[in-house]
């Protein structure tokens, strides 16, 4: 009996020693990276879907689809921002529609007229395809939550914008203003409405809140004398405009003329 007890004690100590050895060696041996394998898994129709996820998403999807698929207007031709050097047909449409929808609103609220609309080329996120125009179309073109702002600018800053426009070489959407790019790549004949630009006069420019805060480096907007937040989202302007018209009007008005050498 004594012997058995003794051996049990030895065994216990042996285990303890063994554990200490293992623990100790694990502690001293910091592991390092021996190998890294990297790959990319493409997710496509070959991968199956988990049904519980589809079931979870479904009510959200149905609600959105019902709202978005409502047909609001018809577009006679595809408007695309990648067509045109200084103007794009979709940019012209968006700037004209924005000026048209915000002018009466601003007149009523502030008793002032909006002279110009300036938007940004990068803000147009999809085409306006030929055929039925739905609420979804508006969401695709303007996915961002940007609102419209009217900015009071002196004529000098309007000239600064034109210089920026020529330097950037991007067809930023404009309305209410026309100008010529002369052979020296400089601005000429800047017209606001039907009148030549007056460098000392105050003009009211409707734009997005993003640009009015200097987005896309449109820093001239920061030199404004006053801003008016219309709290009217660009996308909602578009949706309201689609509701107003049966057919999208296509204007071919030349806003920017370049004199080639």
């Amino acid at each position, binding site marked *: 009996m004594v012997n058995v007890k003794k051996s049990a004690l030895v*065994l*216990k100590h042996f*285990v303890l020693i063994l554990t200490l050895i293992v623990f100790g060696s694990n502690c001293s041996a910091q592991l390092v990276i021996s190998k*890294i394998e*990297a790959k990319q898994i493409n997710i496509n129709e070959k*991968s*199956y*879907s*988990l049904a519980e996820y589809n079931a979870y998403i479904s009510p959200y999807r149905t609600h959105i689809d019902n709202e978005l698929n409502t047909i609001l207007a018809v577009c006679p031709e595809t408007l695309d921002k990648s067509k045109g050097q200084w103007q794009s047909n979709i940019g012209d449409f968006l700037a004209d529609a924005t000026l048209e929808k915000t002018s009466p609103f601003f007149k009523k609220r502030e008793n002032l007229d909006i002279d110009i609309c300036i938007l940004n080329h990068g803000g147009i996120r999809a085409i306006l395809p030929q055929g039925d125009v739905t609420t979804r179309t508006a969401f695709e073109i303007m996915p961002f939550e940007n609102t419209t702002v009217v900015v009071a600018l002196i004529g000098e800053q309007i000239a600064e914008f034109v210089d920026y426009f020529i330097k950037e070489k991007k067809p930023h959407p404009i309305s209410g203003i026309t100008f010529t790019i002369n052979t020296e790549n400089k601005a000429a004949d800047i017209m606001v409405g039907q009148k030549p630009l007056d460098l000392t006069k105050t003009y009211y420019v409707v734009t997005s809140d993003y640009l009015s805060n*200097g987005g896309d480096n449109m820093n001239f907007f920061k030199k404004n004398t006053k801003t008016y937040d219309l709290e009217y989202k660009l996308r909602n302007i578009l949706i309201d405009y689609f509701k107003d018209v049966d057919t999208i009007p296509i204007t071919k008005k030349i806003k920017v003329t370049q004199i080639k050498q």
Partner: protein
Amino acid sequence: MKRRDFIQKTAASATLLTLGGLSLSSFTTNNVKKITVLHTNDTHSHIDPFPANDPKNPNMGGVARRAAIVEQIRREEENVLLLDAGDIFQGTPYFNYYGGELEFKLMSMMKYDLATIGNHDFDNGVDGLLAQMPHAEFDFVSANYDFKNTVLDTFIKPYKIFKKAGLKIGVFGLGVELQGLVDVKLYKETKYNNPIEVAQDMSRILKEDEKCDIVICLSHLGFNYKNDLEKASDINLARKTKNIDLIIGGHTHTFLDKPVIEKNIEGKEVLINQVGCYGINLGRIDFYLDSEKNVAAAGGKKIII
């Protein structure tokens, strides 16, 4: 009485011996540990797959498919981390209608571990992001955005350390400069700090102070800027820091043919990966860890891309 005592003791000892023996043998023969990191970036509210007639990405992506792939990998691998490098928000009406709720809920269902903040995650303002926080069962990290003077303070930590297979994996987040990119009325008083300097601090804290075995940066800086090579990017980050093993990138929607290996400030290899956007791809990085002796005997760390 004594006999019962003896039996109990022997049984306990035998168990301990077996356990001890096991760890001893696993230590001497097969001590390699494996960590699998899965990652996405710039998913931009793309919950449904692209339709079959999409001109650019027909039939690509889809959360329900991503979930199936992740689930399969979790069945095969013991130690999985699922990470996202930001811009979870904005891009489909799911965001416009629900403000990111569904995106966060689905990521929670997939058991995402961690994400960083992209510029578009500010699209409904700091308040809009805060409003969705209850739907996220995963954490957010950003080390160079200082949220102290915003409602997001305490919700976003600089880094998080995961313990898997007895290893410590440290992950910190970095975000892109907000000024000129995001409207100030959205990010409010979020302060942007130099990401390279912050990364130097973070990697020191994680490697030297916290003794992490793997250091990962979740970056929304962008892969590289060809027109502005000095601008903070993942390439610059890799070159100007040390102790970072992996940079998971985002922001520039870069589709890489394969991950990129850069040399850090000490001449050691850093792996950079970004998987495009819209949940079209899932990145997978498997780390194998072994004793320093074995790695040296095998001729050092190997990166297979």
